[in-house]
């Protein structure tokens, strides 16, 4: 879908040789700080600006050369929503229906209903949340097979975020292909098959969310009632202990799921007074990546 795409805005801003493919029916996540190049990439995919090098295609169509076809076949939700002045939400919807060739008014009603949006008021007077909902409805109303969503839940309240995540899951089950940029790790984890991390205009890592979610080893923190038990456990299970804190009588063990029975039987022999799991999340992964990268001496775009 995107091949060695480059757009240099100077001062280290832009995107530099970005390549990735999204398979039909796949939900692909895009995470990274502001200014890392997420929106630039998405705008190239919409054909809003010409690539300096490389190329972007959707459904085999060149995004820069065939913008009107792209516009008709791809649902797009912009990151910063600018609505034309002097229109009501309903007028804007009709305008976009014309542009996208959307005729299905039942689909439109369902979407308005689902997101609890009353489109009759002037777009200028709408709250940020309502503008965002309007953009969601117009992106999905033509029922396109491909969707580019730039931070869709920013500005939505928690109940609406939840509702939107459920909606994206259903759209995914209907076979839609989605590119999703987001700052919300819980959202990315909930819907994406793969996630690319972008930094300073380059993709620095791509992971399968399954690999993070269903890690076959787990890390547990175990707290013992007595110092004797703490020390006995260290002697018995030393090799699996990743970290021990004598003052707190607490250990951290990392074990494969296959060995969990062994651990449970061991623990039954001691007086355990606390047991919790330390989960690895996409956020941990992301932050670790950024922290380790900054130690290598790379600098942010403002420096």
């Amino acid at each position, binding site marked *: 879908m995107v091949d060695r795409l480059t757009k240099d805005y100077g001062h280290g801003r832009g995107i530099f040789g970005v390549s990735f493919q999204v398979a039909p029916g796949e939900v692909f996540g895009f995470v*990274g700080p*502001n200014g890392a190049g997420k929106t630039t990439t998405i705008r190239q995919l919409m054909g809003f600006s010409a690539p300096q090098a490389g190329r972007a295609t959707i459904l085999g169509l060149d995004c820069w050369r065939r913008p009107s076809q792209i516009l008709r076949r791809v649902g797009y939700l912009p990151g*910063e929503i600018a609505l034309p002045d002097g229109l009501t939400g309903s007028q804007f919807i009709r305008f976009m229906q014309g542009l996208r060739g959307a005729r299905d008014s039942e689909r439109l009603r369902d979407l308005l209903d689902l997101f609890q949006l009353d489109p009759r008021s002037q777009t200028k007077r709408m*709250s940020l949340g309502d503008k965002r909902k309007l953009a969601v409805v117009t992106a999905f109303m033509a029922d396109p097979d491909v969707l580019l969503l730039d931070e869709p839940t920013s500005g939505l309240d928690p109940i609406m975020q939840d509702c939107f995540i459920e909606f994206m899951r259903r759209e995914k089950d209907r076979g839609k292909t989605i590119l999703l940029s987001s*700052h919300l790790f819980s959202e990315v984890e909930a819907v994406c098959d793969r996630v690319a991390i972008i930094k300073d205009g380059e993709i620095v890592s791509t992971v399968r969310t399954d690999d993070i979610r269903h890690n076959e080893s787990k890390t547990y923190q175990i707290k013992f009632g007595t110092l004797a038990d703490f020390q006995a456990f260290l002697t018995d299970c030393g090799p699996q202990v990743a970290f021990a804190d004598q003052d707190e009588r607490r250990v951290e063990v990392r074990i494969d799921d296959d060995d*969990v029975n062994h651990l449970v039987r061991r623990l*039954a022999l001691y007086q355990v007074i606390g047991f919790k799991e330390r989960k690895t999340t996409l956020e941990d992964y992301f932050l670790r990546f950024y922290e380790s990268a900054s130690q290598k001496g790379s600098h942010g775009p403002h*420096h």
Partner: protein
Amino acid sequence: MDHTIEISGLTKDYGDSRGLFDVDLTVEPGQVFGLVGINGSGKSTMIRHLMGFLHPQSGRCSIQGMDCWRRAAELKRSIGYVPGEIAFPDVKTGFDFFNLQAGYFGKRDQSRLHDLIDRFRLDASAPLKRMSKGMKQKTAIVAAFMTTAPILILDEGTTGLDPLMQKVFTDLVREEKANGRTMFMSSHMFDELEASCDRVAFLKRGRVIEVVDMSQFNGDEPVKEYKIEFNQPQDYLAFLSRPFSVSRRQEHLNQVSVQVADLAVADLFAALADLDVRFITQVPRTLARHFIQKYYETEGHPHV
């Protein structure tokens, strides 16, 4: 007068059950207090009352013992404020705005300002009018935190910030809390509230439906939920016959969730020792899950 912020019987009826209805809340000195709710639930209306922009229909609110409406002008010098919809005064650059702010609050040393600008990686020489949403938000945050005001009121302070900047923000909130400042913040970001607040109020249709103590959500809650999956159905059934408080069971997966107090966790392992466990995991209690559940409960809808 001990409470830093005191809201009692605050009501502002905009019709259609919008506004605020008989709200009572108190915030103690040095506390970080959070406010969550869906759009239109009354968060900004409450904050605008605290800032003295709105006159209560009935009830009152006060900050440091001073009535928010009648003594608004005096109070403004004690409050650093990040508005929900940011509108800057008509000056050119970020620096011009900071100078204006410094003049208003009385000069604070410039090193503080420069430290904040560095931390947020803000280009304050950029014209305000050409700033992106994220940059404007950072500018508003810096302007609020550069002051020595003992109280900070933040209306969705991190909207538009990316995860790295959100982390800079929560670190800053924690530092300022350690410095004894009192903060009142509304937010849609549960992570942020979990990381910084002492207490969080849930607002729904203008009413406070719950105030939670965040020590229940910091991962050290005394009763934890565990999800256990067994390899064999007979082990699943054998476990169910034991006296544990079961919150969920999924027979087709041989999976069960139980609530176990830390002090009884040894009993759990004793019970599991002669069963064939496929995996065990602890399910952390999160503010997000709690809020969404509470929201639908009060709605009369089934749980999510």
